[in-house]
């Protein structure tokens, strides 16, 4: 039998060492994640001269806003000059309606699927659920032909349609999974009180849906804002959304690479979603996990 005092002492030291190892590992990972953002920010404030002279991690000599101006407004002398202002607003015009429409439809679908069960409803749900997994390459060609037929190819309206259609699977899934946890008895009580399908939705279900609506809106906002595939496939030129413009900008800067401008542009393109993440991280994570742990 070991001495109690010794045991007490040795386990105490062990604990402290554990703690330190823990913090060191966590710290190293934090550096791994934060470094690219740091590099982006410092690079965006440097001049090209500084970039060529100094190293990646060096602090800028002075805060140089020129590259931000170029990224946002363009240089103003070249016709083929790509800058973000127009495309940023394209994305805003795209995101707002796409998010609102798909969220509303998702909420009503989720409500109907959980609170007004009908024959075959689980099959309907299954089809929506599977829809969240399909690789979009399998629908790109017919979609581009359909947009052409309707006459909304290469337009924000076309993109709104695309994002509503393919976002619907996710919004329906989110809302369905939330509403299924709400007691059915509330709906029964309201039916006995004489309220119908829509009245129950608007007066009773919607007022308690804030948590899931926030999650759904954030999810859809991030998806639509960050989309590149649909934007690149269905639009070109001045109609493109921001991610497409960012990619074009990085690719087309003709002879001289302007890394500072690229970084400023990347930050601008990532800014809205980053802000949402910082302000509503809790809901953001909930959306991610809700989208992952299905059923």
């Amino acid at each position: 039998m070991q001495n109690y005092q010794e045991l007490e002492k040795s386990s105490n030291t062990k604990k402290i060492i554990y703690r330190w190892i823990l913090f060191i590992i966590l710290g190293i990972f934090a550096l791994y994640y934060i470094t690219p953002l740091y590099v982006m920010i410092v690079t965006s404030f440097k001049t090209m001269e500084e970039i060529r002279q100094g190293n990646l991690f060096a602090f800028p000599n002075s805060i140089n806003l020129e590259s931000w101006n170029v990224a946002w407004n363009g240089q103003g002398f070249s016709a083929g000059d790509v800058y973000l202002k127009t495309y940023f607003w394209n994305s805003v015009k795209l995101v707002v309606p796409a998010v609102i429409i798909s969220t509303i439809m998702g909420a009503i679908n989720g409500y109907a699927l959980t609170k007004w069960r009908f024959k075959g409803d689980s099959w309907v749900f299954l089809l929506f659920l599977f829809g969240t997994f399909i690789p979009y390459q399998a629908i790109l060609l017919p979609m581009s032909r359909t947009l052409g037929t309707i006459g909304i190819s290469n337009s924000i309206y076309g993109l709104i349609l695309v994002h509503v259609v393919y976002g619907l699977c996710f919004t329906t899934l989110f809302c369905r999974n939330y509403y299924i946890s709400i007691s059915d008895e509330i709906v029964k009580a309201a039916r006995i009180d004489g309220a119908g399908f829509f009245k129950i939705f608007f007066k009773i279900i919607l007022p308690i849906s804030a948590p899931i609506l926030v999650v759904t809106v954030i999810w859809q906002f991030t998806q639509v804002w960050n989309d590149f595939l649909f934007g690149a496939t269905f639009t070109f030129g001045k109609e493109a959304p921001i991610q497409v413009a960012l990619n074009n900008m990085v690719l087309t800067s003709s002879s001289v690479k302007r890394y500072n401008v690229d970084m400023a542009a990347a930050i601008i393109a990532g800014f809205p979603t980053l802000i949402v993440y910082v302000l509503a991280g809790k809901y953001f994570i909930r959306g991610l996990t809700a989208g992952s742990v299905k059923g």
Partner: protein
Amino acid sequence: MFWLKRNLPRLVIAPSFGVLIWFVYGFILWTIYISFTKSKLLPKYEFWGIDQYFRLWSMPRWHVAVENLFIFTVLFIILCVFIGIILAILLDQKIRAEGFLRTIYLYPMALSFIVTGTAWKWILNPSLGLEKFAIDIGFETFTFDWLVTPGMSIYTIVIAGVWQSSGFIMAIFLAGLRSVDDEIIKAAKIDGAGLIAVYLKIILPMMRPVFMSAIVILLHLAIKSYDLVIALTAGGPGISSDMPAVFMTQMAFHRSEIGLASASAIMMFLTVSAIVVPYLYSELKREDQRN
């Protein structure tokens, strides 16, 4: 009136359901059909058999794409899950700065793959990025030019992809860890199990469903990965970092090979289905048992 009342829920779902059937399942069927035709620039509806699939699988470029997808998927999943679990377990130790650290680990998930690719393209830049930094601080023979080296560029996509997605895997594992019954951990500790044993022998085996979800999601992300490749390497140098998703859009919109593009899209669709269908089946069965 009575009929309307009884069928209102169906009527409400009907438009969305119609959209789903048409734009998802109808379109997939269309693509499947086109993959059996000779379509080039425009769709031709004359049945041609499975020749497009033969063409596809005899193309060296497609083999490169599939091989790259395999490398990327395996590394991406292993690294994301490994990092995700480690971070989740470490964060689960009642760390004071947990909220702050979690925010840092997860923020890349808010950024698009295009932004991610742009940033990493700059960091991995052979002349001015990491390589120059290493040389500047004294490692004069240091070279890091994967981005422009055929055969290596695919690994840069892994690096950026893991950076973007591993925090997310951490989040779902952390949620899983938090849902483990505290009393099980207490019981194990009283039984004399050390912290590492508790995690390896008791908690991680309990997280099988979380592993499953994580792997399915990562697989699905990997197979769909398009943006990141475009932004980081554009499939290059040459076609050395090509992936099926990139291949498909190339064939469909630049090479006027609609039939071939459809065949490649259907290969992707089948791969995803082969993973997702059994997964969904087991998930739904589990839910059924719970009810």
